[in-house]
């Protein structure tokens, strides 16, 4: 059996202050992750499916070391992650994370400058960086907007700009937190086309979503998340009759009935 590219093993995590909030609101969980286990294999196209507050974003933040678990561990190529400066830098080159809100990670004066941040951090010279920036912007369909400031881009374009910033690192694994949130159907279709092209080029892609149809249609593999745990996983076909994946059930948030 092949070693997964990245593996989350029994992750537990609580945000600071969550326990105090849980005392004020009986019934509220204090653990954002309560034993999440997930394996991501090379070449996968995986959708992490769950309701709001199920822990999807928190789990994704663990995958590139942005958050460190209270308990459990993340393994990359079978080796536990290190959280030192060098180890994290090496990990973030391999595992690029794209946040749900693009304004959480875009900062520079122009689009091209923002995309150049990652390659320059890797120590590439300016000529090599320009090549990577051009390739990333072309891959995501924004080459003609390279010299525009970020606030002159639409929300959908800023989402793609954030992806371009991640692609410029040439990662093995691209992790996207709710990439289709706030996009119209045409924007979703365009984004998925770009993701398909990246996957066809050999990149492993993981995205989180609460859109069942998107998970079914796009992913090769789906992991269902609820209350900070992965409660089911497999191909969309194998989960077709899963009670969680019946749209009406999902909409009524009865995913909690899953054992």
């Amino acid at each position: 059996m092949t070693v997964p590219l990245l593996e989350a093993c029994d992750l537990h995590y609580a945000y600071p202050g969550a326990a105090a909030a849980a005392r004020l609101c009986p019934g509220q969980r204090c653990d954002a992750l309560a034993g999440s286990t997930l394996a991501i294999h090379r070449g996968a196209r995986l959708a992490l499916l769950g309701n709001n507050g199920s822990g999807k974003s928190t789990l994704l933040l663990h995958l590139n070391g942005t958050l460190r678990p209270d308990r459990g561990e993340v393994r990359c190529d079978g080796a536990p992650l290190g959280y030192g400066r060098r180890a994290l830098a090496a990990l973030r080159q391999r595992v690029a994370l794209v946040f749900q809100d693009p304004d959480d990670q875009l900062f520079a004066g122009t689009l091209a400058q923002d995309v150049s941040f990652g390659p320059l951090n890797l120590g590439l010279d300016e000529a090599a960086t320009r090549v990577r920036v051009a390739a990333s912007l072309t891959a995501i369909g924004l080459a003609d907007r390279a010299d525009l400031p970020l606030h002159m881009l639409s929300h959908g374009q800023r989402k793609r700009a954030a992806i371009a910033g991640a692609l410029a690192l040439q990662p093995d694994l691209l992790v996207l937190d709710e990439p289709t949130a706030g996009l119209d159907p045409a924007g979703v279709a365009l984004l998925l086309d770009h993701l398909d092209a990246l996957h066809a080029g050999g990149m492993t892609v993981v995205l989180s979503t609460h859109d069942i149809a998107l998970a079914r249609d796009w992913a090769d593999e789906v992991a269902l998340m609820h209350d900070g745990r992965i409660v089911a996983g497999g191909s969309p076909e194998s989960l077709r009759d899963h009670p969680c994946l019946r749209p009406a059930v999902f909409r009524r948030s009865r995913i909690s009935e899953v054992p």
Partner: protein
Amino acid sequence: MLHAIDACAHTNRWRTQGGPMALFCAGLMGCALLAPPLAAAPFVAAAASAAAVLGARVPAALFFRTLLVPAGFLATGALALCVTLDLEHARLGFSGAGAATALATTLRAAAGVTVTLCFACIVPTAQWIALLRRARVPAVVLDLLLLVYRTLFVLDAEFLAIRRAQDNRLGFRTARVAGRNAARAVAVLFLRSLQRAARLERGLAARGYVDRLPVLTPPSTATRHTYAVAALVPALVAVAAVVLGAGQ
């Protein structure tokens, strides 16, 4: 206005001429500050306006309408200088010396403001930050400038959203309610700016940020010829100002 000026800086004809425009504006600013104001200010303002409107094709309406805002402040300050308080007769009077000072100060300031606006409308932020980098300004200062520039627009969008949300729920129905809600909007914006800063820090950490924000230098089409022209115009303005100033 902030958005209009920024958009103009990123779309004008000379947007990739950051170096020459910085030289041009620095020269004109030097003339405005050092040359005799009565002679220099009209030339400086005319040269800056012509460069912006005729050269870089900045929309004239935007350029001159924007100048009206500082002009209002300058006029108010000039009026105050023209007035003197006669303590003997306990009345306000006109001061000839004050008026002369007001004229010189206002002309100097108006010329300086025109040059500043010319620079703001023509040179994109990325270009002038690159110039500061070449001038060996410490990297941490430039990183801060980049973040402030980006954050300004993010928070401007947030503030607009907050104001619209209040307005849609009749938050500005009366002057009293409007004042109270404007203060609430500012308070909310303060909290949001802290949250935004925390989220941006996390986002940048996920992209490999440690203690620097390196970015590419924006493309420049400046040549020796454009630098020469950019230096020549302020020099001519200075000569004209000195010659005319000596004759006065």
